[in-house]
């Protein structure tokens, strides 16, 4: 039962010696919803920390920032159009996201999330922490009435709530590892360049691989002179599991 171990260690770390481990499993209907939710918040953080600490290959974030920055400069030179550069960065992120989610699921061993709210928590506390060693703050939208038709018949937890289309969460990044040495020139500011747009693509690609179609976009960016760097992830719909043609 090795799958239990990160949850058990998180549980023990919190001092919850007496609880049985079954209620920590994210995709089972729980008795005490409130308790579980509070515990799961801390549990995600602990999982994220564990994943980060357990990782042996780490590199200097500057290297990454330098590489990315040089790439953006080259793309601007090639495309000469900031909107196009935004699209290309997002596309690049999408491809990276598709791969990175596999890596993430393999390493974290997390099961399905109950609802979109939990997706936000996992993305911020486990995902970002495990890969970029940052924990953006998550704020959720007010849950709207659930729309059953948008959910596939199989798979998702029937006890889930706030999974309607249009639900969103916002990630506020305190420090953006990509933008370490960056200052945008006036033309880039006027042209509307979202420097870290690759992150939007990564999120979109990763979530699409786990059957969620989302719209991800920047709301504000410190590089543009705003107060904070914020990314909004809005749920469009859940995707049906498709059987590949000719496979049955």
């Amino acid at each position, binding site marked *: 039962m090795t799958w239990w171990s990160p949850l058990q260690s998180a549980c023990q770390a919190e001092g919850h010696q007496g609880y049985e481990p079954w209620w920590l499993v994210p995709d089972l209907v729980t008795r005490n919803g409130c308790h579980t939710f509070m515990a799961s918040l801390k549990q995600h953080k602990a999982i994220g920390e564990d994943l980060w600490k357990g990782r042996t*290959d780490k590199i200097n974030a*500057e290297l990454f920032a*330098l590489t990315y920055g040089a790439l953006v400069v080259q793309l601007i030179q*090639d495309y000469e159009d900031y909107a196009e550069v935004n699209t*290309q960065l997002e596309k690049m992120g999408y491809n990276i996201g598709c791969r990175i989610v596999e890596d993430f699921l393999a390493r974290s061993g997390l099961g399905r999330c109950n609802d979109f709210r939990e997706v936000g928590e996992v993305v911020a506390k486990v995902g970002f922490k*495990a*890969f970029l060693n940052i924990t953006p703050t998550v704020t959720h939208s007010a849950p709207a009435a659930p729309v059953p038709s948008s959910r596939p018949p199989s798979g998702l937890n029937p006890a889930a709530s706030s999974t309607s289309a249009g639900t969103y969460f916002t990630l506020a990044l305190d420090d953006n590892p990509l933008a370490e040495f960056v200052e945008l020139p006036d033309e880039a500011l006027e042209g509307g360049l979202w420097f870290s747009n690759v992150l939007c693509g990564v999120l979109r690609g990763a979530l699409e691989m786990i059957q969620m179609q989302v719209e991800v976009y920047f709301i504000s960016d410190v590089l543009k002179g705003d107060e904070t760097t914020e990314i909004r992830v809005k749920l469009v719909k859940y995707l049906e599991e498709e059987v590949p043609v000719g496979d049955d």
Partner: protein
Amino acid sequence: MSLPSQQGGYRPSISTSSLITPSLLALTDSPSSQSQIDASVQDYLLIELVHSLRRSSQVARDRLQKREDEMLANGLLTSTAVAASTLAAGQVSAGLGSKTSLRGLSAAAGATANVSVTEEEEAIRVRLEALGAHVGANLAERYVVHTPSVEATESSSQSLSADRGRFTDTLDVIKFLCKDVWTAVWDKQIDNLRTNHRGVYVLQDNAFRPILRISSADGPADSLKRAKIHTAFPAGLLRGALARLGLQGVIIAEIPSLPQCTFQVKLPKGT
């Protein structure tokens, strides 16, 4: 940034450490204590970078081609002038040399397909090397100026050339590359360093990280071919690092067999 000796011979060595407040010091921490991220993120980025640059270099070339066509159509340029300007522009933007797809020549040669594929590879390679050079130069600077072995207060105020005294000769610089730079970027050291003592060094890595996990559906020969483009960024990185440390070298990367990779560093005579 050295303190001007306004006081003449009154106090010959005035320490500048009082100028470095704790908050400033926190900003200039050494590379080893700086923020880190997962190495796989960089790997994914580098892979996608190649695809992205392939698309963007195509776009850039198409645009250049279109501009020439327009100029030709408007009679602003004759076709020979186009050839010359394409050559010049090509060398500036993509460093192509004799393989530029000059419209007249390529049509006449009839080998348009071959020429443009090589040209495309060249364009990507040049871009990757330029990217690598930028990263390598900055990396070398950070690692030479801000290593923990040098005094924290002094190092941040010294210029790069003053610190250059750390490297007594070329071999030291190469060893710095083999150990510190390789570890910083690929988490391991070079496995084998050879030299002919006449300015040529061969750095061999038996499990080179960027090409470690490449496999192709068309067999090992194809994998090797595809792996070549991923050595462009590292080659550029080495070139940039060397250049920033004062050595102008030519780097040639070769893959004798996956995942081994050798980098031949040719330094000009006299170094």
